[in-house]
Structure formats: structure tokens, C-alpha cells
């Protein structure tokens, strides 16, 4: 494994260099070299925009093969709450649990119990916090990466709390083997992810050595496996069949639910990576005053806009609202238990989020400045139309590639052409 793990790759045979990914990449991590897309492992923040946008389907998500599940004696699936919104609201969430059991899982556990506990913890954390503001939610792994790569100065603002999925997985790993008399390695815990960043956060977490999950599947993969079972189960379903102990709660699936949990009046909720960058710029330049907490999600409308989902995000959002109205039960939190665990550091991340140092030009100050001057000089001579034919997303990115030695002057189709040729 290289220094930075990523959950997608370019399928060279399919890629025909159409540059859609290069243009959309929020960190300018992608270049087209010799007609094929390549991405910088250092700069990629796993948002998955390139997967959604590729017209050739050449960006492939690297999820775990379903066959690997067989290696475990007892299999637990932890679906992202958004999974339920991929189905019509007439389908009771309990049916989806049953469908999981039919396809071979021994247990289905939702993350909503953990998110209810974490809501308490977050509120408590913000009330007692007295450092630099605003605090930034740690929920979206892609945003955490974006901060590490592009806004290293802001890492200290990321709330050092675990996310519901990890708390859930740990709870399972700590209790189930004992209850069933199995060894810890016999119990496999799997997550159903809405985006590549969630996979990466499990394979190579930003704030700890390893995740509590054993593997990750995508919503897309799971949906196609579940669908025939869901349809069949719905035929013979009756509300009476739902056991009393079954509780449905959409948890933090909807954008703004973390903000509500934070319990402060001075909040912001931001979705979409371009909007996220604007807000992070403002925070970095101290322009966002009087805000205490910011919930930021990389995809429009939050996880519901994740690239692994099958349903249109707006349809899914409507589904989720209807499901909440029809099936949701509030989750009772054992406040004493939560307070005790919080004191023991149970909800805190193992280690702080650290900047992911990317050297822009060089480690040496004098060389760096020299390269920057070179870069400005080259840029002045370029057409600044960001045509992309050289393989870089903007003329500025091309100038930077040139001085780093990653591109040639001759890659630019305009360089050396006289001004009159412009028309």
C-alpha cells in the first residue's frame, strides 16, 4: 500500500482523456498525461466527484468484494442511514433489515443509537470548549481530508469526536464476540458506504491507526443484491411482523442534524465541496466571525448526494423525510452512561487530525521563492483561457507543473504563437 490509500482507480482501457474529472477535481489533483487521467495521491481528498462525472465510466471504486464476507463466522452489517432513503417510503425499514438477513448477514445494526449518544457528547463538548472558533464537524471524512491537505492551519478546529459508524462498530466488536462465545476475529463488521471517502476513512483513518470495521461495501453494490429480496419480502409484509424492540431512526442522515445536535445558535450548515472551500477560505482568513459550529459535507445535500447512491438525491431526500414521518421513533439516551463513557474518553478520537504536509514547490525557502517567481513569469505569458489541452485544469496549474518539471513548454498549444493568431 502506498503512503496514501485511495478507494478508486483509473481504468486505463476505458479512459479516453475527456478531462471531465480533471476539471471538476476540487484540489486540482488530476492531470491528463498521454491521453489518460492520473491523480496525485497526495492531493486527492476522496470526494468522488470524478467518479460521478466521468462520461466513460473509467473511474472505478475499489469496494471490498462481497465474496470476502464468507471468511467470518458471524457477519454484522452497519448500513449508512442514507441506504433506507434509496428505497420507496412505502417499504418499511424493517424489510431492509430482513433482506440483509436473507442475503447472509447474521445481524443488522443501525448507527442511530450512536449518533444519539454523540449528539449529547457534541453539545457538551461545545459548551465546555474555550479555544479558537468556529469548530468544524468531523463527520464528513472528505472534508477532514480537504482540511488536512489544503487548510492545514484549520486542523485544530476539527472536533476530536468519533463518528457514529466507528462508535457502532467498536460497540459490536467489544460485545458480540463475548455474548456469542466467539473469538473477536470471527466476527466481521461491515459498513455500507455512500462515497469513496468513507471507504478510505475505514481503510486508512485520519485520526487513528485502524478502523473497527473489517470491510466496506458501497450502497450501489448492496442495493442491487438487496432489491429482489426487498420486493419479495414486501409482498408478504405486515406491520404486525415488526418486533417491539425494532427502532428506526434516520440519525444524522439529513443535512443539518449535526448542527441541531450541537445546540448552539451560532451555526452554519454547508454542503457541496465548492461551497465548503469558500467557507473554509473565509474561516482561514478570519472572515467568519460570530460562528461557533460549522457542519460541512462534501456532497450537495450531504451524504444523500454521495456518488455511490443509486437514487437521485432530491428523491432520496423526500423518501427520507417521509420515512421519518411514518416509521421514526426517537432514541432514548442513557445520559448517565454517556457521561461516564465521555469521562473515560470513549467518544474521543484516538489521535488528533494532523495536517497532511504537501510541499508546494520545494522545502527550501529560497528555492521555493525562485520557483514561484518563475511560475508567475510563465503564467503572464499564457493565454489564461484554461483550455485544458496541455493536461492541466488551469493555465496556473500548468505554470506550476512547468516549474516543478512535471510538464513541458511544448504541451501548451498556444505558447510561442503570435498575439495576432488569437482570432
Amino acid at each position, binding site marked *: 500500500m502506498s503512503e496514501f490509500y485511495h478507494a478508486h482507480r483509473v481504468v486505463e482501457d476505458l479512459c479516453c482523456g475527456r478531462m471531465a474529472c480533471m476539471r471538476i477535481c476540487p484540489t486540482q489533483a488530476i492531470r491528463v498525461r498521454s491521453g489518460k487521467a492520473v491523480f496525485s495521491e497526495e492531493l486527492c481528498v476522496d470526494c468522488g466527484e470524478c467518479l460521478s462525472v466521468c462520461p466513460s465510466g473509467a473511474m472505478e471504486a475499489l469496494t471490498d468484494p462481497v465474496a470476502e464476507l464468507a471468511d467470518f463466522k458471524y457477519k454484522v452489517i452497519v448500513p449508512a442511514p442514507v441506504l433506507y432513503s434509496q428505497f420507496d417510503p412505502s417499504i418499511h425499514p424493517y424489510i431492509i433489515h430482513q433482506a440483509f438477513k436473507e442475503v447472509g448477514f447474521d445481524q443488522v445494526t443501525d448507527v442511530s443509537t450512536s449518533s444519539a449518544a454523540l449528539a449529547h457528547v457534541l453539545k457538551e463538548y461545545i459548551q465546555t470548549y474555550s479555544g479558537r472558533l468556529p469548530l468544524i464537524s468531523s463527520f464528513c471524512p472528505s472534508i477532514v481530508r480537504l482540511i488536512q491537505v489544503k487548510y*492545514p492551519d484549520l486542523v485544530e478546529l476539527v472536533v476530536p469526536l468519533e463518528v457514529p459508524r466507528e462508535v457502532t462498530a467498536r460497540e459490536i466488536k467489544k460485545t458480540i464476540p463475548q455474548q456469542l462465545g466467539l473469538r473477536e476475529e470471527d466476527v466481521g463488521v461491515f459498513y455500507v458506504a455512500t462515497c469513496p471517502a468513507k471507504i478510505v476513512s475505514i481503510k486508512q483513518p485520519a485520526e487513528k491507526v485502524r478502523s473497527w470495521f473489517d470491510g466496506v461495501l458501497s450502497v450501489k453494490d448492496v442495493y442491487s443484491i438487496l432489491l429482489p429480496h426487498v420486493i419479495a419480502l414486501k409482498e408478504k409484509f405486515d406491520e404486525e411482523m415488526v418486533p417491539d424492540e425494532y427502532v428506526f431512526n434516520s440519525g444524522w442522515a439529513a443535512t443539518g442534524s449535526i448542527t441541531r445536535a450541537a445546540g448552539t445558535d451560532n451555526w452554519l450548515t454547508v454542503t457541496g465541496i465548492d461551497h465548503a472551500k469558500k467557507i473554509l477560505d473565509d474561516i482561514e482568513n478570519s*472572515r467568519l466571525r460570530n460562528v461557533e459550529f460549522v457542519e460541512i459535507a462534501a456532497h450537495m445535500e450531504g451524504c444523500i448526494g454521495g456518488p455511490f447512491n443509486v437514487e437521485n438525491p432530491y428523491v432520496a431526500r423526500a423518501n427520507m423525510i417521509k420515512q421519518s414521518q411514518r416509521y421514526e421513533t426517537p432514541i432514548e439516551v442513557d445520559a448517565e452512561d454517556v457521561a461516564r463513557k465521555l469521562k473515560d474518553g470513549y467518544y474521543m478520537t484516538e489521535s488528533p487530525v494532523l495536517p497532511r504536509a504537501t510541499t508546494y514547490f520545494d522545502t527550501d525557502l529560497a528555492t521555493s521563492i525562485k520557483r514561484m517567481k518563475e511560475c508567475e*513569469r510563465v503564467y503572464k505569458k499564457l493565454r489564461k483561457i484554461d483550455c485544458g489541452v496541455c493536461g492541466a485544469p488551469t493555465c496556473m496549474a500548468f505554470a506550476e507543473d512547468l516549474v516543478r518539471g512535471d510538464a513541458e513548454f511544448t504541451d501548451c498549444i498556444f505558447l510561442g504563437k503570435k498575439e495576432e493568431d488569437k482570432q
Partner: protein
Amino acid sequence: MKIKQIKETLGATVLEGPDNLEIEVSQVYASDLMSDVLAFGKPHSILFTGLATRQAIISAHMAEFKAVVLVRGKIPNDNSVKMARDTDLILMSTDLDMFDACVRADSIQKGKALSSESVSEKAFPEELLLAQELVIEGDDFASAGMVSTGIKSTLKKIGLDNVLIRRIAISTYEAEMNVVMHADKGKVFLTVTPTYVKVVIADQGKGIPDVESAMVEGFSTATEEMRAMGFGAGMGLPNINRNADEFEIQSEVGVGTTLNMKFLI
């Protein structure tokens, strides 16, 4: 010196260029390393190089040179000659090697007194790595903060420590806001050396009558309108004082204010 003089002294052949070589060049820059040409070459220079490729021609064009002399009798291919034509560069070739070509060019230079321009170049301390001058428009609240944002991104690019950048950015932003609020126009001078970053912000504003009071937290002469926008809480100057390693303020009523901030690397 004139290109004609150089051509005659070096016994060079003109491969591409006008008949009339009465064109003035400011200095000779001799190098085979094109990144050095881009970084250190001054506009209107003449390049001496052994690199007879298209790369050399484009680099000279980028660096706004007037001419290129290929040493050791190198002859470029047609492509390079065409590139010189397209970019209005004079292209010559001499049989002399690099050292001899430089020595001969130096003799032309010695023949005349140093021009005022080259004297001022020498006056800069050698260690000055970066010098930028930027303008702040007073009363322009819509684009307020652009200058400090620009400085921040420059410092990020050259790879300074994050905490240091933050201190510089906060101080510059506060000073910039002061200019926007209280002056018509201001200038920012950013200089970087291997040991420090210096930011000087000078405005032509109404000046501060009592600098000592202005340094006290909470002291403010901002209008209600400015306060409504979240500025003018009287934290600006104290904030700069806290963040800069050295801070000097000079102000004269009716003339303007100059802030001098130094940050050690």
C-alpha cells in the same frame, strides 16, 4: 549596450532578426539552465547559452529577453528559428565558447559607466528573496481583505510554517481593514529574506492623533456602519502587536499612518 555592438564584438552571425540591430539590452545573462533564466533573468536582457533548442527560445521569450546568442557555433533547427521569429527574438550564433563570449561582452560593459538602473539593482541586499508591492483601496468594503488573502496564498506557496503564516495573515488583515476604514488608499510592501518576513503598510489617511490610546484594546473611532459589518471593535492594533515579533507605528495627523511589522522565520 546595443545588440549591434555585441554582434560585432563576438563576431556573431544573425540567424533571425531585423537588419537594424540598434536595439539596447540591459545586461547579459549567461546560462544553460532555463529555470534560472526564468527566475533571475531581467527583462530586456540578452541570453548567452549553449542550449540550441526551442526550449531556450521560449524561456528567453518568457523572461522578456530581447535576444539569444548561441555559443560554440551551435546551429538551431528550423523549428527554433521559427519560434524566434514568432516571438520577436533576435537569434545569433557565435563560434566563441561561453567563457570567452562573456569576457568579450564584459569589455563592452566596462567601456561605459554603470547606468543608474544597474546601481539601484546592486543596492538591494543580496539576501532579499522576495519583494512585492500591493495596493489597498480605501472605503472599498466589498473587496476588503483581498490583499491579505493574496499575501497569505503567496506565503503558503513558498512553504512557510502554518502558524507563522496565520500570524502574518491576521496582522495584515487587521492593518488592511484599518486602511479600508480610515484612509483613501494604502500600499503594502511585502519582503521575505531567509530570516524574516516584513510587511509595511503605508496609507495616506487622516492619521492617528494619539497612537498610545489606539494601542489599547477596545479603543475605536469606527462608525456605527463599520461596526455593523463586524469591524472596528478596537482590537486591530493590539492584535497586530500580539502577533508580530516587531511592530512599529508612525502616524501624522492629516498625512497618514505607516505600520511596520516584522515576523521572524
